[in-house]
């Protein structure tokens, strides 16, 4: 009996919170808030906050066309795999003191799990056979390479800071990082972590592929690149994945730097997490979106490996010397 209850509890985690339902609602809302904010910053009226939901359901009602030249199975499976992989990552990220799946993955694993949605969109695009997808694929991969270095440095800096405080030397476990922040307060209050947090804020738009780092999708040049041949429900799932990715990365930021703010009551914590994510999105995605123009791909690479990596490296060096 207890086994069944346990199984149901975990199923609930996967399907409701922090799994699908939460990801769907929170991700789409974040996306809506982002669009509204950008519009406000640019003195436009902007779409209603619920617009992403309307878009999604409208897309699901449209005909889905698979090009004759495409490799059908990969083409149709890619969006589903990407979404599932993202939701699974969300299960490992602690909501303050609560972690749905405890002791299964650490930050290095999450770094690599984040590649799976990117790989699935790349595979889907490649399977369509479109030349625009080819260009988009190349740019998407370079964007991933660009973001990887600062992200790695940020994660190592956090691991070192928490590890030396806990006396184990280094610590990759997210729940240990959350626990450390419960006791010692948020990591962002440490001066050595400030540059890393700033770098991470700049990594988020790159990883989600939002403006000005959206060369891989650049509608006006390469017709949405990897998504050029997608339509209907499949496109809708990709749009949903994009929204969920915003949620995943901003809650990863919250887990790394803003831990220890929780109240211990799960519903309140979930709400608080969503508000924090909205704040992070507003700063790192909407603000950056509103004030910049799209970069070229080689500029993105240069930007991430210099401007963003340097503060992350600074943090790592500071953490290394115990500051």
């Amino acid at each position: 009996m207890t086994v069944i209850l346990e199984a149901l509890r975990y199923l609930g985690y996967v399907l409701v919170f922090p799994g699908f339902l939460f990801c769907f609602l929170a991700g789409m809302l974040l996306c809506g808030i982002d669009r509204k904010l950008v519009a406000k910053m640019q003195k436009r009226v902007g779409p209603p906050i619920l617009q992403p939901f309307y878009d999604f359901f409208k897309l699901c009602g449209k005909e889905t066309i698979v090009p004759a030249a495409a490799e059908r199975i990969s083409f149709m499976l890619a969006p589903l795999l990407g979404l599932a992989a993202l939701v699974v990552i969300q299960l490992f990220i602690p909501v303050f003191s609560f972690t749905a799946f405890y002791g299964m993955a650490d930050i290095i694993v999450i770094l690599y799990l984040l590649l799976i949605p990117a790989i699935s969109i790349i595979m889907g695009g490649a399977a369509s056979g479109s030349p625009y997808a080819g260009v988009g694929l190349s740019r998407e991969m370079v964007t991933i390479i660009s973001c990887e270095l600062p992200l790695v440095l940020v994660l190592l800096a956090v691991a070192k800071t928490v590890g030396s405080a806990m006396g184990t030397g280094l610590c990759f476990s997210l729940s240990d990082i959350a626990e450390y922040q419960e006791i010692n307060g948020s990591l962002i209050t440490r001066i050595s972590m400030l540059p890393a947090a700033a770098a991470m804020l700049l990594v988020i738009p790159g990883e989600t592929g939002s403006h000005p780092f959206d060369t891989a999708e650049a509608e006006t040049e390469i017709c949405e690149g990897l998504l050029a041949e997608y339509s209907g429900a499949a496109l809708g799932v990709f749009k949903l994945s994009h929204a969920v990715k915003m949620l995943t990365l901003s809650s990863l930021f919250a887990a790394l730097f803003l831990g220890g703010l929780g109240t211990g009551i799960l519903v309140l914590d979930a709400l608080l997490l969503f508000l924090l994510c909205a704040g992070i999105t507003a700063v790192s995605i909407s603000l950056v979106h509103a004030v910049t123009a799209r970069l070229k791909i080689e500029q993105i690479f240069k930007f991430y490996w210099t401007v963003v990596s340097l503060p992350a490296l600074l943090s790592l060096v500071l953490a290394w010397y115990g500051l």
Partner: protein
Amino acid sequence: MNLLGNVLSYQHFPIYAIMVLFMGSFLIAAFGENRRVRNILALLSITASLIFSLLLINPVILRGEIIGYWMGARSIAGGYAIGIALEVDALSLFFALLAACAIFVSGVYSIQYMSRDDNEKEYYTLYLLLCGGVMGMVLSGDLFNMFIMVEILTFAAVALTAFRNTARGAVEAAFKYLVVGCMGSTFILVGTAMLYAQTHTLNLAQLAQLVPGNMNTATKAAFALLFVGFGTKAFIVPFHPLAADAHGAAPASVSVIISGVLTKSGIYGIIRITYFLFQSMGLGTMQFLLVFIGSVSMFVCVTMALAQHDFKRLLAFHSISQIGYVLTAVGLCTALGLSAGLYHAINHTLFKGLLFLAAGAVLHETGTTDLNKLGGLARKMPHTTVLFLIGALSISGVPPFNGFASKWLIYQATYQKAVESGNIGFLLVTVIALITSVLTLASFVKVSHSVFFGQLPPELEKVKEVSWGMRFAMGIFALLCIVTGLFPNLVTTYLTEPAAAAAFSVQRYIEAMGFDGSAAVEILAGSFRYAGVWEPVSWLLVLCIALLAVTIAALAGRYDNVSLCRTAAGDSKYQLFYGGEEQSFSQLGGDDMFWGFKHNWRGYFSFMHRLHSGIVNDYALWAVADLALVMLFSLIVL
């Protein structure tokens, strides 16, 4: 009955495992005219070798024995060992198992893969000679026999590189390999001779007893010679250009052996001399040497691979890049590091074998490995595509495949080493390892797009899936990739940790052959705990549940239309969008895929382009320069 029991005692299995391969080779040379006889002989000998190595798991790994085996009677004259010896500890057996497994799968693949070539008899003769050489080298207990086996395997590998000598560049590649490979063998021979002059023995156990107490200029020089000599066999920097040429020309089944097994025998040689013979791994400088060469290999070769547009040359550079991971982890000289390095060695054999076989399948069906001429094969060769993707995701370190499991350990090992030693340099190694991994992914995205996805060129319309025998061989590797990725605890408990423990118990290694090991410098391996957690099976379970949920939701929604809706021929809405361009002009070649990345590093890439001139004189010069540097280094620090 007693005689039979004696013959079947496991003490003899090491020599049987070597002997069956050589016997197979000689028998095929003598009686291999008939195709059926030849195939049966080859299969028999590789299967027998695999079985003998598997049977050794019980005594050597599970019971922890060290088999010291003397050919004929053991004779010690004046306290010095004379005679040919085999010595099998968990480390030797670990490499022997890797070799036997790769030899078996590649042999099965060869039967259909090589069926269109002439001179199949010569192929199997050389193939088994190569395999026997590798097997003999890792099981040998005697430095001179290691050299003999290295010679055998080098010459067999050179001949096999040029096997398809009508193909462009095959003879040239073999010539380069011959020149530099012979230099490497000569270094090993000279190093062996110098050690013999100093210690009057060639037995590895006795050398391990005597060398550390007799450190002088000659033994230090011998270290450099042996190190560089085995380095050429592992193709680590600066010998990586040879690997690219050799793999580009050799048949895929031989590439599996060269990349999966031959390079491992070089790593084995390096472990034997650094951990056992000279017992110098406790020195920070010696760790620096290995880690430095390893990190340079992994980074330089992955960037070289990004610039390639030939499927097999690209794989060759990745091969060395992954060997760099192994060498780096081995050089850390911690229990976690060595175990992680050996784990990666297993995984490298499996996924690189799989990828080479997939490249061979593509070559077999299309006749080319040029990324610019291929594309869209996923619809023609669906099984090969899936198998290739498993290999590609494994090498790129994507969970839950095996490459991730071992790289995860390597990141931890390097970072832990950095924290323990307080040396920030090891932190840089962690970062390089992480970045190399994503660059590896980039280059396999390129391959999968330009070979298996993307547009199908009209001349490849008639391509078919490869025969079942080749798919079966690839399937074995793919299955092992998944198993070793999903159950990392089994691999570390039963394979890599015993082997790593063997490397840290030099005294037992010496005493197993009856010498006095009390003076051996024991390096304390130390205990370790993982800094993070990774549960692949539970993760996969959760992912499957999530994927199932998404799929059900999608099917319940409008997704099922897709499977019902068949594409109507000629309906323009099912055509790809070309923006008004002709289709033939819109093909995206694999050549310059990651322009945005390469543009920023154009200085580095053009420097590398100038450096890798393809002239064998240059590469020979690099070998000499490398030797000079390592010798200088070892004279100063040892």
